[in-house]
């Protein structure tokens, strides 16, 4: 559970905006059936409405989206999202807006969602377990961003 003024989705929103091809390459935009479109909408909703959770948000994630996304971009975005996670631990809420965007990236990157126990450290271990190479890259990118920010 986090408060609106603790999170900064501006950078993530810009990144997702750049990732979204607005149907140019996809031939026709699937809108809310697309993981990037959905994640972009969540970020945009947070910035507009100043909310931290979206009720039933998890249930709305388009997890049947099977498009292939740029691995580098997904890892980069995931690292950005992890930076905004507040390590809520027991207070973790699946419908947290950060969690929703992260889950979209997971589906895009791993093809499935990973368990999240309210801790970035534990999450990085899960990512490593799921895919060693991607997990290692993600950890390196996250630590690098953390160092430079």
């Amino acid at each position, binding site marked *: *559970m*986090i*408060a609106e*003024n*603790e999170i900064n989705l501006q950078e993530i929103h810009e990144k997702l905006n750049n990732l979204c091809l607005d149907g140019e390459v996809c031939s026709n935009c699937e*809108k*809310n059936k697309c993981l990037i479109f*959905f994640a972009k*909408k969540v970020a*945009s*909703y947070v910035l*507009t*409405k*100043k*909310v*931290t*959770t*979206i*009720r*039933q*948000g998890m249930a*709305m994630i388009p997890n049947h989206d099977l498009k292939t996304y740029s691995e580098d971009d997904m890892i980069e975005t995931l690292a950005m999202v992890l930076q905004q996670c507040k390590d809520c631990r027991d*207070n973790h*809420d699946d419908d947290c807006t950060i969690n929703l965007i992260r889950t979209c990236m997971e589906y895009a990157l791993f093809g499935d969602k990973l368990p999240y126990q309210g801790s970035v450290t534990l999450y990085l271990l899960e990512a490593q377990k799921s895919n060693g190479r991607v997990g290692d890259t993600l950890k390196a990118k996250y630590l690098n961003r953390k160092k430079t920010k």
Partner: protein
Amino acid sequence: MGKAIFKQRNGVLGVGIVTPCGFITPEQLCGLGKLLPEVGALGSKLTTRQTMVVLIPEEAFDRFVAGIRNLGLDVGVFGDVVRNVKGCPGNGELCHRSLGNVFELAVEIQQQYMNQPTPHDFKISVAGCHRGCTDPHCADFGVIATGPKTVEVFLGGRGGSRRPQHGQKAYVNIPKESIFVVLDHVLDTYRKLAEDHERLCNTIGRVGLDPFIIQAEKLPGTVEEDEFADFLNS
């Protein structure tokens, strides 16, 4: 109804001062700083219920009460009544973590309900997020904000007891403005169904939670559930 005045072992009075959910202005604090030595206070103690108990000689009681009333404060309540409300500093200006403006809500609940008679003491706690700094799970009526306009309500918690227990989640994501209707209903039902001096958790244990529930569609206010779905499709 009972006042929060407790004779101590050494003969002095412990007098509980109630404020709006523990909030004291600098002027009130300075005023107390002057008043306490004037009435010969031995000391004061901050309580777990966000009140302050001041230890004063019995003969100074009237002067003390007049003094605190001049500061806009009052003697707290005790006994089988709705007690003062514990409220966290969750609002637009204070706690960063709060999900809704609950401090104002808690103060309003206290103003409207404190000192109303109940079968047993009835404690209310209001928290701005699930961290629950005011221990809403340990209150007879615990309120937790789940968003700017929504709250959850837990019923039947109690802290200090041989058998402490957490309240049961009774209302999920209801509109904040419906809290007064819910509280009225819970208090009315509790008064009707409780046996003599029965704490709410025991009444719920005997009759179940159902009589204390108002169906969501009958609650005032609306939760804009489909707001994000509309936004998504826009």
